[in-house]
């Protein structure tokens, strides 16, 4: 049965080539480079993009590896809910300085994560921990849940803290904390 089908379907094969071209297109990484794209700051404080003959009045920037490789594989996407990908920047270093700066501004705000410089106090009570810290953005206080994985170990020394509202804080190197601070943090690491 199946052999007959195989031979007697030239129509299907045609369809296949046509479809494959479409699928192959999806399956390839579409790189945005210095040569084929033009990013611009909009007057409204966003970024527009001209790419492959199309003009996007506003685009969103996503990091593919926000922790391990923040400057590479920047996914440029549509700003709507579906967030379809327009293309990928392999590395910010491959762009010219000004463009890289424009993208970085957007990334900085999207991935806003204050760095904790000093732990003033951590109080744990009834399943919640109340942090009082000094960050690179100034002093702040936030609350985390104790039971779930609010404190994520990105590496041996690097820690990400997510508070009850999803706000993020980072300690880039816990070995730089003082012994007293480490003691306070000990519960979480």
């Amino acid at each position: 049965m199946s052999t007959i089908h195989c031979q007697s379907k030239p129509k299907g094969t045609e369809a296949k080539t046509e479809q494959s071209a479409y699928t192959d297109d999806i399956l390839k990484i579409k790189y945005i480079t210095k040569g084929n794209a033009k990013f611009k700051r909009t007057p409204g404080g966003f970024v527009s993009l001209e790419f492959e003959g199309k003009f996007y009045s506003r685009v969103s920037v996503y990091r593919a590896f926000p922790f391990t490789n923040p400057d590479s594989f920047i996914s440029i996407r549509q700003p709507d809910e579906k967030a379809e990908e327009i293309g990928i920047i392999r590395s910010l270093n491959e762009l010219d300085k000004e463009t890289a700066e424009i993208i970085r501004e957007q990334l900085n705000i999207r991935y806003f994560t204050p760095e904790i410089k000093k732990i003033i106090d951590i109080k744990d009570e009834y399943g919640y921990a109340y942090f009082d810290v000094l960050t690179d953005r100034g002093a702040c206080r936030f609350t985390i849940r104790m039971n779930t994985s609010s404190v994520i170990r990105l590496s041996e020394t690097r820690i990400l803290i997510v508070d009850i509202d999803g706000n993020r804080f980072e300690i880039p190197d816990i070995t730089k904390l003082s012994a007293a601070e480490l003691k306070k943090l000990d519960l979480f690491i």
Partner: protein
Amino acid sequence: MVLDTTNTVNLPKNLIEQLEGYGISADSIFISALADMNLDCQYEPCYIIVCKDKLVMALGTTKKRETHIYGKHRDSSKLFQSYQWAVKIFDLNKYDSLDIQPLISGGVLFGVKDENPVSLVAFSGSQMGDFRRLVNVYNKLAKNEELTDEDLKPEDDDIFCPKCGAIYPDRARKICPKCMDRRSVFFRMLAYFKPYTGKIVVMMLCYLGAAGLNLVWPYLNGTVLYDKVFGKNEEFLRFVGLPAGKFTVLLAAVVLSMVITKFIGQVLGIIQGVMTAKIVPDVVKTIKSQVFDSMGRLSINFFTSRQTGSLMTRVLDDANFITGFFIDGLPYFFINVLTIISTCTVLVMINWKLAIASLILLPLLTFVSYKLLPRLWHYYGKRHRASRSLYGQLNDNLTGARVVKAFGQEDREIKRFERYNSQMRDAELSLVGFDNRFYALYSAVQNIASFIVWGFGSIIVLYTGDLEVGMLISFAGYVTQLNGPLDFMSHIFRWWAESANSAQRIFEIIDSHPEVAERDNPVHMPEIKGKIKINNMTFGYEPNKPVLKNIDLEIKPGELLGIVGRSGAGKSTLVNLISRLYDPDEGDIYIDDVNIKDMSFKDLRRSVAMVSQETYIFMGTVAENIAYSNPDATPEQIVAAAIAASAHDFICKMPDGYDTIIGSSGRELSGGERQRISIARAILANPKILILDEATASVDTETERAIQRSLDRLVKGRTTISIAHRLSTLANADRLVVLDEGRITECGTHEELIKLEGTYYKLVQLQKEALTIRGISEEDI
């Protein structure tokens, strides 16, 4: 319509005054939100205010920057009282609409004018809800749409404890652990022990007896033994009524009474233990059954909004914990208070100077354990976490052994294991280290205390003669006896607070009302025809995030309706709503022209059966699992259902046939086998409305055909809704519905939809192409 705006204004006083100066009165303000960052990612408060006809932005500036507080705060308006406000006022037509660009947490508020977006401010994740509502209000006003009270209602009206102003740690729970009414929780909990009053009284008497004996013991082995017997006290002989000189008899009598004291103490301990053993399991069982019973009544939302793990903890651990507190903690508390008071009294009576000297260090001991015990627990917790991740890693590895081997990653896994293993070792080491230090310190203080007693006491014995040796031994015995109760007192309050929290959690489940509830006088519909009508229905799992939008659909009795669409399009949600696992946010669903909200649960559940993509097998035999929907089914019916579901063959091939134990601890079934058992279950339920949610997704094509054939027979005379990715499954469907992003985009017969050349056509083309590669003809689909 007069809108209630009283609750919406939460602005600093000086800002309100300033606004009034610009002619904006507080009650013309519809809504406001606090942007806590600026676009350069610096903390800077900026209030966005929407009034009847104005949009106001008030940027706060100050010389001295305050600590930034994440999360809402009841006094957030007071937080910025010392700020100066730079106010900008716009007309409402400044922007055609407002919108939010979401960030990883939080977002950027921007206005759109003539399709050009202009970013305004940024805010943290804590403010997202406020900004969503503000955007909604602004956009309605800009479009001249009518506002409702619903639009202006604060998202979480009461996220603060009204008493102390702290934010509730869990917004869904709305319970402030600090201020919760522990007394009412206490008395309610106490009610569980009421049936055991007799036993508890016996238990308390035992405790009291033991405490009394504890007072006697040091006296016997100290003062009586040394001073009266060894000290040959004739007066004492006369006192107990023995003839003079008979000290051997006295010694025997003292030893005997010491033995009796110990013996009674042991007996009391045993009785008390027996009583505890009788009461605790009973109470724990009662509480657990009550919790489980309430959980069964709750709607599915309760289970999805919480982690199953934490639910398990609640049912299992909380009940134990509380009962433990009530049986072990509470009686001990009274006994210990009594012991402390009586022992101290005795000490003072023996020798008040020595009493003061020896008691002076006791508070220090209590303080040491009060301060250090929590840290010790903390180390225990740490070791517990480390061992959990070690087990997790081990479990991961054993279950994924095939993948590890297939990719040749054994070495890396060993290294990974090594890491968790060392973490475990470190945790263990620091625990043991702290444990040692703790006990060293603790016993050091204890020893110093007893040195003081002995040293100071000896001086008194030697020089002043106020005290005899035996009395000193008794005294020292009493002082040692204080250690236990004081230690206990140091952590009883924490224990109490935690068990009150546990009790509160349990009551929360017992008291919670199901979101999807049966009406008081439900309509009974023993026999239904199977007509389904969905009327302009909107539903979302989270507010403002609709998964299904304005669904209108009518399904005729006996019709076979296929639903297709991308994953995440809302297909499963739609059928979940029809079986009333959730209630729609807007619109209604009717079965035979009766709103399903009015139908009795029993009739609804009997009329609608679902075979979903998640198959669940209960612990029990195959037969029991198939007959789950109808426990009275005869063996014949069970076999018939299994045959119809193509399950009969594989069941017969198992050594124990229909009596094979399956489920968590029983025989492992493959995905396809599980699915066929759940289909058999649905067939046996014999519902008028059958919902197949990817019911044949994990069986092979041949089996699917077999099941399909039996389903074909089964669907005759009943309404069937079938969701499938494999379009061939829907070959017999009378009508097809295409769902896309929560909307019905196409609806019609196979031919009609093909002619439309829309989404369905594309899907058919794609699957056809996939099949042609394998050499299967179009006609086979």
